[in-house]
């Protein structure tokens, strides 16, 4: 069964450093999403991406964040200058034109 994959599973970085989180969505999916979950809190929407552009972003998704689909298979989330409060589990999800989103296993980001 096809699944969403994410790398790395755990990333540790120093405050102020740039990180890139990578996702490979399910191959025939058209809609891509990033969510994050701070420890003990609910899953929060960050950004959605369709037809090679951002279709919606949340207030969390400020200028420090960017997304890209560089080669037709990968979908990346870049955080330019990480802050302590960016520490969270980041989930990538993808879907076809329906609502059912399938999630990857997540990348745990720890900012020191």
């Amino acid at each position, binding site marked *: 069964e096809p699944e969403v994959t994410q790398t790395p599973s755990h990333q540790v970085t120093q405050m102020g450093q740039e990180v890139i989180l990578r996702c490979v969505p399910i191959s025939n999916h058209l*809609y891509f999403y990033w969510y994050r979950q701070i420890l003990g809190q609910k*899953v929060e*929407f960050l950004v959605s991406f369709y037809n090679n552009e951002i279709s919606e972003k949340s207030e969390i998704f400020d200028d420090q964040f960017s997304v890209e689909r560089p080669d037709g298979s990968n979908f990346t989330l870049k955080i330019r200058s990480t802050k302590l409060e960016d520490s969270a589990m980041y989930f990538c999800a993808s879907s076809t034109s*329906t*609502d059912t989103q399938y999630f990857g296993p997540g990348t745990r980001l720890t900012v020191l």
Partner: protein
Amino acid sequence: EDKVVQSPLSLVVHEGDTVTLNCSYEVTNFRSLLWYKQEKKAPTFLFMLTSSGIEKKSGRLSSILDKKELFSILNITATQTGDSAVYLCAVTVSGGSNYKLTFGKGTLLTVNP
């Protein structure tokens, strides 16, 4: 602001018990409600509901939506220890070209042997 509220926040039962998890929502232009199971990491999809009163069923799990009263329930019968997880409810709304999920805080279910 779209809001999804789940109750209870946590629940401890014994194997074999039946449980009912609740999800209520207040959103503009409701489109669908989804249930996910989250064990160690990624939420895994259980059900999507769009129509009121139609039960979705998969094995021991079932779910129903009431669009008039703005809530859904997830039932698990004959619970097993493998059902222990956080159960997440999320909604999508109509409009635009994307279907972002707005999640509740989840219900932590613990099934003891």
